[in-house]
């Protein structure tokens, strides 16, 4: 029962986090900005609209939204334990695999571009993610705030930026052909399918932000405060840096990888 409650809580609160980040972003830019509940309005609008499907698309295109949302929700079940985090890598990969296939399905070059870039970025994320989990695994048992946990938290933050398509890796707000990654993949989707995909990416973002908050901040601090701080940092990063060229992303994730190595070394040294 608690599991179902937890999942429902995830679904209900995930769009809020997205609204919060964009609200903070807008305020930092000295704009009034959209309502903090805008993501809910968007979802409601999308759920009530009819869909347009490409004539070239196959059944892959149709089933993908369900697989993607299912993988995001499954991932939300396993964020309590270290071995669950390891599972996260694989479960996220399932959703991404189908999303990339669906992007290729309609036969537009945007989709192909998005799929290719998304797979590129995510394959570089995986080793860094694995090292972060490895470092946490070595420190498991200790709940103290250590250098190792802070470094692995920072590495995970960079991974979160890449995985949730935030600036400087990707830009959720853009629809410029040459710069979009995630948006390019879902370009052919509309209506309820798009709503499911959007919801899935909100949930994924929520999972990763919670993880970062839990790793960096001491356990005594309430999780909500941690989440809001991480969200504020994400927003600050988004307004203060420009999007990178795609091939610079490899360097960006290289930094995450090196931080992962440092985190492992710190965990071994016990600091």
């Amino acid at each position, binding site marked *: 029962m*608690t*599991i179902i409650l937890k999942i429902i809580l995830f679904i209900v609160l995930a769009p809020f986090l997205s609204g919060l980040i964009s609200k903070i972003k807008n305020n930092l830019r000295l704009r009034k900005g959209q309502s903090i509940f805008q993501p809910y309005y968007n979802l409601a609008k999308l*759920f*009530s609209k*009819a869909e*347009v499907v*490409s004539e*070239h698309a*196959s*059944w*892959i295109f149709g089933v993908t939204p*369900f*697989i993607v949302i*299912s993988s995001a929700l*499954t991932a939300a079940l*396993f964020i309590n*334990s270290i*071995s*669950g985090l*390891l*599972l996260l*890598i*694989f479960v996220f*990969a*399932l959703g991404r*695999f189908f999303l*990339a*296939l669906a992007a*290729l*399905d*309609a*036969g*537009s*070059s945007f989709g*192909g571009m998005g*799929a*290719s*870039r998304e*797979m*590129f970025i*995510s*394959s*570089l*994320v*995986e*080793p860094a993610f*694995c*090292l972060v989990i*490895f470092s946490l*695994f*070595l420190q498991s048992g200790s709940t103290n705030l250590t250098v190792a946990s802070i470094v692995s938290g920072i590495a995970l933050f960079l991974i979160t930026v890449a995985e949730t398509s935030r600036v400087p890796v990707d830009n959720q707000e853009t629809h410029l*052909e040459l710069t979009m990654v995630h948006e390019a993949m879902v370009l*052919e989707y509309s209506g*309820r*399918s798009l709503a499911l995909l959007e919801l899935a990416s909100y949930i994924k973002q929520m999972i990763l932000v919670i993880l970062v908050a839990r790793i960096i901040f001491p356990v005594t601090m309430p999780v909500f405060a941690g989440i809001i701080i991480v969200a504020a940092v994400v927003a600050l990063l988004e307004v203060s840096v420009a999007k990178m060229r795609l*091939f610079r992303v490899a360097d960006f994730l290289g930094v995450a990888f090196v931080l*992962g*190595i440092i985190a*492992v070394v710190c965990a*071994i040294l016990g600091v």
Partner: protein
Amino acid sequence: MANLLLKQLFLFDPLSIFFLIVIGIVSLPSAIYSIGYMRGEYKRGKCILAAALLIVFVFSMCMVVTAGNIFSFLVFWEIMSLVSYFLVIFDTKHVKSVQAGLIYIVMTHIGTAFLIGGFMILYKHANCLDFFTIKNICQTIPFQTKNIIFLLLLVGFGTKAGIVPLHIWLPYAHPQAPSHISSIMSGVMIKTAIYGLIRFVIFILGVNQTWWGSLVLVLATITCLAGIIYALMERDLKRLLAYSSVENIGIILLGVGLSMFFISINKPYLAVFSLIAGLYHLINHAVFKGLLFLCAGSVYKATGTRDIEKLGGLIKKMPQTAAYFLLGAMAISALPPLNGFISEWLTLQAFFLGALDVTGGTKLFLGLCAAMLALTGGLAAACFVKAFGITFLAQPRSHYAKEAKEVSFSMKAGMFFLSALVVILALNALKIIKLLAKVASVSTGIDIGNMSFSLNNFILTPQIANNVYLSAPLLAAILIIFAIVAYAVYMSFGRQKAVVYKTWDCGYYKLDARNEYTSTAFSKPFRIAFSFFLQPYRKTQKIRESFYHVKSFTYETHTTQVFKKYIYDPVLALVLKSAKAMRRMQPGSIHLYLGYIFITLLLLIVFMRKF
């Protein structure tokens, strides 16, 4: 000598039986598949020849894994290599086949030469050929000699398995054979080399040097990464699969190497566990790679091409083949809840659990190996998104793909059999782990009587709620339930039918297959990110009518095979050069030759007197 040979001709222990099962479950569907595949492709006589060769091939592999002494092992090993050579050059119409066969036969014999070297040293110490006697004697062999034997065997079996940089033959030979043979070669034959490594290094020789395991781990990591990066660049569907076999051999060797490492530092639990992970991936790879090769064969049969740039849209023409290929691609990309996920998950766990039991820098080493495995997994997913997406989705890129038809019943039956195995191997993970534990225990000589491999005791499993732990069927159930719930929600928001319309084309009115993303374009980010390894070459040329109007544009790109360029080509050049020099010794004069014989005789006499 004669009774030395006859003693212990066969050996049926769990390790042998495990490999017999692997051979059986891939060969049977491939044989069924070949009925439909060969029909219409070759003349009747040639089909019968192919069937005969197939039988001898499978038989020789069975004998290799059940041989009880070194002599019969080598004999059947050679038969296996020769028969597979004939199968590689089976398609004699293509010049490529003959070239591929030549590379294969040369490399495989270099490998066998190293094996014979290793076996001769073993024989010198044991004075006997059967496995158990040698195993007993091995405890007395000094460690320097053991090191030499290990290295010889590693190179010998490594050549057959396709460890980088000895993999050079694999991407040529495997795709060139008929598809059902490719499936057996990639699925099973290269695994006999893993059998050899486990049998001779772990079982007979016994691992007591830590660097053996470390060396295998390093080689395995390099093999994984190099294999999958080359696979990503490939546009020939069967060569892509062949390179991916190189990658998977690396993953299997990660398990085996880790097991060797733990044996040498005396951690029996972890040693058994790592070997289970390796063996599990071995049988999984046999099944899904066999499946993928059969699907690639179906695509070839239906379209007449293996170049994925010319394919596309096949999911509508060949729905069943597409579904089987998708299943295989998901399994090989380690997506939950399929079988590839389970074995990669076990391998990752072996690294994680192992790191708790070692100290200092070794922890970091294991962590880095695990990270590289994760990178391999990510790249494999990208590779198979490309393979499936470009081949089966969107619009057909050529008339070959437009006119494709679904393949015949026997071919579908072969693919169905292997697809079912992919699912079975995933859902019965726990039982299989228990069975593999027996195999691993016999191979390593570790008693597993008091070890438990139940889910919450030994294997790290995520806990969902109190006392509810994750298992493969449960994960599958969770995923399916969530998908169904999402579908129910989707349906409850109205049932208006989706409008079918053109793909968004930015107002450009004739979007066709030429606008689609290609395989080369898909792999471009990887080509640039790994350019230090791939050394891509590109040339663009514009032909202009005037300054403003470009009439045509040519683009050429290819990557450099670094191992071929920096290792094999120089060696080959050296061999040719020395052959040229040696030719002076052979001017055709019979007197000179008699002189050579006389000098050789004299030297031999002196040599024999001296020692």
